Each structure stands twice: as C-alpha cells, then as structure tokens.
C-alpha cells in the first residue's frame, strides 16, 4: 500500500522522526532471555554412613546409597522465550530405619528394614519462560516416577523489576499431586494406595544494595494435605494435614581484593506439627587464576521435634512417629566445590559431609537412634553453544 520508507516525502520523514522521540515509541528496557543454549550433565553419589551397632538391633547396618545422574538444558527460543529441560535419574538402594525398639539396657535402638529397598526414580521437568519488558514469567511442569510413588507438579513464577532496576519483586505458586503405592520390599506397609497434595506460594523481593552487594527476602507458605504418614515405617500415624511457613533472607557481597564473593543465606521454618527450624548457609566463592574457582561452604541446621515424635510407641497416642527426621537435632555440613572454565566448557567437582547430633541442636528433645550422617560427591560438565 505504501511506498518504501526511504522514498517517502520529507514531511512524513520529519513528522515520523519527531514523533519517534515520544515515550510511546521508545522501547522499554527488556529482561533478557539467555543468549546461548547451555547443556550440562552431572553425576552425584549420596552415601549414608553405616548405622552404629550400639544404635541398631542386629549390629551395624548398611544404610542408603543413591546414584544420581542429572541432565540440564536451557535454550533461548524465538526472541523473548526460553525453554529449560531438567531430567534426573536416581538409583536408590539400601536400608531405611523401620522402627525403633527398646534394647535390654533400656536405650532405644533402631530396627532397619534390611537391604530390601531397591528403587529408581526418574524426574522430568520442563520450564518455559517469557521475558517481557522489566521482568519474566515462567511455567514449570515436573513429573516424577518411582515404583511406589508418582508426582505431578505445576508451578508458575514471575519476577518484576522496578523502573530503576534496583528492586526485583518475585512470586511463585505451585501445586503437586502425589500418588503413593508402596509395593516393594518385604516389610509390611501402612497403606496400599494413598494420595497427597502439596500447594505452595512464595513471594520475594531482592534489592541492589551497592555496586557489590545484593539482598533478598522471601516468604513461603506450603499446605500439605493427604497421606503424610511414612508408608514404610513400622508404626507411623501422622495428621493428614500440614501447614508450613518459611521466611528466608539472602545476602551476596563481592570483595575486590581477594576476588571473591560471600554468600549468606538464612531460613526460618515453622509448621503446625510444632516443628521449627533455623538454617544458615555460608559460602565463599573464591576465584583463582586460570579460570579456577574454589568454594568452601558450611551449613548449620537445627530443628525442634514434632509434637508427636517419640522413640517408643504407645498405642494410646493419636499421632505417633519415631522417624528421626521429626526428632530434635542439629546438623553441620561442610563441603567444597571446584569449578574450572575452559573455552565453552566448564567442569564442577564437589563434595559434602553432613553430620547430625541431638546435642548440636538448640532445641532439646529425645534423641533418635536413627539420625543420619552422609557423604555426597558430584562431578558435572557444562557446555555453552556460543
């Protein structure tokens, strides 16, 4: 209909170029989609310490071992979209605490399930993300499948930057529907088939504090509804509802002289089972010559026991669990990450030691004999298609 632009009359040119100075015709600053496609593979090993013979009937016992393979892909799509695919395969084997009994000396001892658990889990998670002016929004679907457990989850999240770009507001909601069908193993189970729903909302705000520091705060609420009892524990009767609150804070600070970044994260957690916990995570990301980076990290965790946690069963209790996860304890973990970038590749090595003890916690309670210590090792390789 119209002639090519460059042949247009000079009045139209004058009007157009003058009009283009008005704000309506100026593109706003857009949140940027990733520039390149990235792929990554990781292998990790999770290995629980043997349970000490003084804490278990039938002597020391092997516990859980998991091999995990992870695949990650993140790719820009069209002009304002990205797509991420995460797949994880887990191969689990070993024994899990079955129930706690009383030894002749009167101290509680754990009875293990025997090397009866053998399971594999596959998780596939896809996220599409749209980058609009001043923010982005993502939609995630995650499917997880094990012999005895299936989970379908959908999550939506969004981030919105203030006009000056100094503050970012974020929010997310997720819902998950899980089916539990305990099938395997020789031990009797608490249910044959059950369901559980988990709904969660989260809001957060992050803020640039200075050229070298960022801070963020977040608040989340999670509602669990359905079969929350552990199907494999000897006697386990938990409420069919759980309401959880978590408040978190994070801080990042860059130090020029050592060429390093300090990460500090804290979380306070509280629920209506009377569990409260504090978590502190500190990491030091130290850059080294030749594109190496070493990151030592420590984590401290302490929790208050659930109101229905007891080592020894009494049938008169309405709710009962001897699961060590619901006992009062403290946990220290420390580890090291090593990263090396070479060309478009990067390799990551990491190791973590996790140790628990009832006496390390700030809350007192009955000590569970089933407390877990573990090692975790990982190796990952990432590639960027530039």
């Amino acid at each position, binding site marked *: 209909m119209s002639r090519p632009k460059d042949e247009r009359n000079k009045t139209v040119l004058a009007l157009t170029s003058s009009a283009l100075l008005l704000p309506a015709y100026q593109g706003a600053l857009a949140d940027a989609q990733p520039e390149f496609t990235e792929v*990554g593979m*990781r292998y*990790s090993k*999770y290995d629980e310490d043997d349970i000490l013979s003084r804490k278990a009937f039938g002597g020391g016992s092997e516990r859980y071992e998991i091999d995990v393979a*992870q695949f*990650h892909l993140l790719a820009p799509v069209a002009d304002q979209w990205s797509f991420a695919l*995460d797949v994880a395969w887990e191969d689990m084997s070993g024994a*899990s605490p079955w129930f706690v009994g009383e030894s002749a000396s009167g101290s509680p001892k754990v009875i293990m399930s025997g090397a009866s658990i053998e399971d594999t*889990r596959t*998780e596939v998670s896809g996220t599409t993300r749209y980058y609009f002016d001043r923010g982005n929004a993502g939609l*995630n679907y*995650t*499917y*997880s499948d094990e012999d005895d*457990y299936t*989970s379908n989850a959908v*999550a939506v*999240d969004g981030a919105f930057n203030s006009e000056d*770009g100094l*503050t970012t507001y974020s929010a997310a*909601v*997720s819902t998950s529907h*899980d089916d*539990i069908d305990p099938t395997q193993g020789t031990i009797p189970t608490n249910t044959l088939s059950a369901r559980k729903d988990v709904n969660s909302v*989260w809001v957060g*705000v992050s*803020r*640039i504090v*200075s*050229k*070298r520091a*960022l801070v*963020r705060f977040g*608040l*989340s609420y*999670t509602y669990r509804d359905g079969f929350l009892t552990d199907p494999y524990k000897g006697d386990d009767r938990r409420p069919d509802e759980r309401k*959880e609150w*978590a*408040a*978190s804070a994070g801080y*990042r600070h860059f130090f020029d002289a050592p060429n*390093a*970044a300090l990460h500090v994260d804290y*979380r306070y*957690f509280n629920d209506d089972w009377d*569990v409260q*916990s504090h*978590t502190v995570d500190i990491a030091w*990301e130290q*850059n080294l010559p030749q594109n190496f*980076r070493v*990151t030592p990290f420590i984590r401290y965790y302490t929790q208050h026991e659930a109101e229905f946690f007891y080592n020894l069963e009494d049938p008169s209790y309405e709710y009962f669990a001897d699961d060590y996860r619901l006992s009062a304890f403290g*946990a220290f973990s420390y580890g090291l*990450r090593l990263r090396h970038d070479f060309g478009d590749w990067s390799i*990551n090595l990491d190791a973590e030691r996790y140790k628990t003890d009832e006496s390390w916690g700030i809350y007192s309670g009955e000590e569970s004999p089933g407390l*877990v210590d*573990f090692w*975790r090792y*990982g190796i*990952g390789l990432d590639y960027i298609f530039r």
Partner: protein
Amino acid sequence: MKTLTSLLMAVVLCGCETVQPWERGILAKEEMQWQTNVSEAQLRNQIYASKEASSGGAGASGGGCGCN
C-alpha cells in the same frame, strides 16, 4: 510476621545507594547469583528436604518424591 513485614519494608525503602545501570558489572558476575550451580542446588535441597523436617523457603516447592 510483623518483624518479617517490617524487614521487607526496610529492604524496599532502604537507603540503598543508587547503582547506575552501567555500574552493575560485578552484580552480573556468575559468582554473585543467588544460585551458582542450579543442578547441584536442586539436588542439595532435595536431599536436605528428605532428611530434615523442613523444606522450601527459596521459591515455590516443586514436585515431590518418596525419598527415604
């Protein structure tokens, strides 16, 4: 809750210095991100959540697992 709300307000209203758009190079560094290795962080969080009574806090929780 009150404490938290006031903390949140403090961040939004804080007398943080204005960092010009061209001065955000350090903040854009990979080591300054909230998570520096997403796959590892996912795995860590999953393990902690399956061995402790707490989970979540850093975003909406995703799918579940029957992790023992």
